[in-house]
């Protein structure tokens, strides 16, 4: 069988030539440094400008605090241990609110994407809710539920559910039609098709929706905490910010903003970014550099 051997080797040669080459270069340390250094540099520049503006005394001290004064506010929260309570109160609310949103948004998104009547009926409504700032619900929520956790969760839900549901719908809409067809040819039934083909295929879009949903639930929560303050609610980051305003303490206000920013970005970087990178990398869809 000399012909067969030759045929096989031609094929092996083609395979070797055609296989895409992995072009990532440089050591691991260098790649991480290239990723981490630019944002750190940006923060350093920003703080330097801030310091310069403060030193130039353009604005009075009660309008623009010194970076060092804001830092000492944060450091005091850290050393007294109060920061743990601030974080716990806010983050556990955001996480619970996000989890409930997920439970509502996934069936909602599936229904909108798969049932024409539902899509025509409430699809535009859900998209519209996404552009309505959920903080607009705070007055209604307080009148309905009073100053308590339920009012806050209501606002968070209205912020996060439309984003997550819309993310899932657009993820499902972007599934190439050939994939469900192939699934059917491979013997997928209605539920097998959803479980094994549609849902995994829609995952990248869905993750985008989750990320946005988290951002919405975090900012809705901060808005709600900022407006709805009461001793019963405990002290979260929003209330801390509110207290700073009441005390006319600008360094405390700045410290509050910095902490809210750090938590929002931190969860995105620690949870959503690695998740998204793993999913995209497995599909050969590298994230934008």
């Amino acid at each position: 069988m000399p012909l067969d051997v030759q045929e096989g080797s031609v094929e092996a040669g083609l395979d070797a030539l055609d296989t895409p080459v992995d072009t990532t270069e440089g050591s691991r340390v260098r790649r991480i440094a290239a990723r981490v250094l630019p944002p750190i540099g940006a923060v350093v520049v920003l703080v330097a400008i801030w310091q310069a503006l403060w030193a130039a005394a353009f604005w009075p001290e009660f309008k623009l605090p010194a970076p060092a004064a804001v830092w000492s506010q944060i450091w005091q929260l850290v050393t007294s241990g109060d920061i743990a309570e601030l974080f716990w109160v806010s983050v556990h609310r955001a996480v619970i609110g996000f989890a409930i949103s997920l439970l509502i948004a996934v069936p909602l998104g599936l229904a909108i994407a798969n049932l024409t009547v539902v899509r025509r009926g409430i699809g535009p409504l859900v998209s519209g809710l996404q552009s309505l700032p959920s903080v607009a619900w705070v007055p209604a929520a307080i009148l309905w539920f009073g100053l308590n956790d339920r009012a806050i969760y209501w606002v968070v839900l209205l912020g996060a559910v439309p984003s997550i549901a819309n993310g899932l719908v657009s993820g499902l809409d972007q599934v190439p039609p050939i994939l469900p067809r192939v699934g059917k040819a491979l013997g997928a039934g209605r539920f097998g098709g959803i479980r094994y083909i549609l849902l995994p295929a829609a995952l990248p879009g869905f993750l985008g929706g989750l990320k946005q949903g988290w951002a919405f639930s975090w900012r809705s929560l901060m808005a709600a905490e900022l407006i709805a303050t009461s001793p019963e609610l405990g002290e979260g980051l929003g209330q801390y910010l509110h207290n700073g305003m009441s005390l006319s303490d600008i360094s405390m206000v700045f410290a509050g903003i910095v902490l809210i920013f750090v938590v929002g970005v931190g969860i995105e970087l620690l949870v959503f970014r690695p998740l998204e990178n793993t999913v995209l990398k497995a599909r050969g869809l590298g994230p934008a550099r």
Partner: protein
Amino acid sequence: MTATIDTLPDVLSPVRFHQVGKTFGTGRKSVVALDGVDLEVEPGEFVCLLGASGCGKTTLLNLVAGLDHPTAGRIELNSSRPAVVFQEAALMPWLTAAGNVELPLRMAGVPKAQRRAKAAELLELVRLAGLGDKRPHELSGGMRQRVALARALASTTDSTGDAGDKPSLLLMDEPFSALDAITRDVLQGELLRIWRATGTAILFVTHDVREAVRLGQRVVLLSSRPGRVVQQWDVEDAPDAAAVTDEINTALRKVISSHAA
């Protein structure tokens, strides 16, 4: 009498068309894609379905695959679930090559160990042993199409992990037309090898006369709008491949030019 009973299973064709017609839409805007098609594929036979674009060859394949239903006549399917290979490999990008081959087995509820073994065996058959862990984007176009072929072959097996006694049938819809010439040539050779190794019947759709003559035992020419069987050639035993290629080419041109008016 006993003789007929003994030979009966051998006579059963994997697929037989009885005056099959397919019309899309209704009223004046309707399009007749297929009309009165009678066609039979013998067990283990390699049939190439040839025609210009719009002749309903893809429609015909979809009918056999169960992705669409005929509007007239009936299709008698005696095979296990037909394996389908499309023009695009359409591998699931979130699964590895082996994961893709295992997918139909997973949906059929085949236990894990059996799935693994079957997938490895099929990847070996398409000469991709050892590449099961690769993702689709790490493979070339020809390799992806071979994974798609292995996956299609896996879909013919039922929940017990084997195809049973029914004859198998492989449907291919211009599977090599998106590949470059060298890869196409190599894969045509591979397909013939796999066909001989597995003994499956193949219904292969193409618009390339040379491909049809090289691969098929029988070439069936379809007319366009409506698609009807115009002529058939037995090309396996043809003494002169070039002559029969020319003859089929002439017939195909005649079919196409009849649409010029």
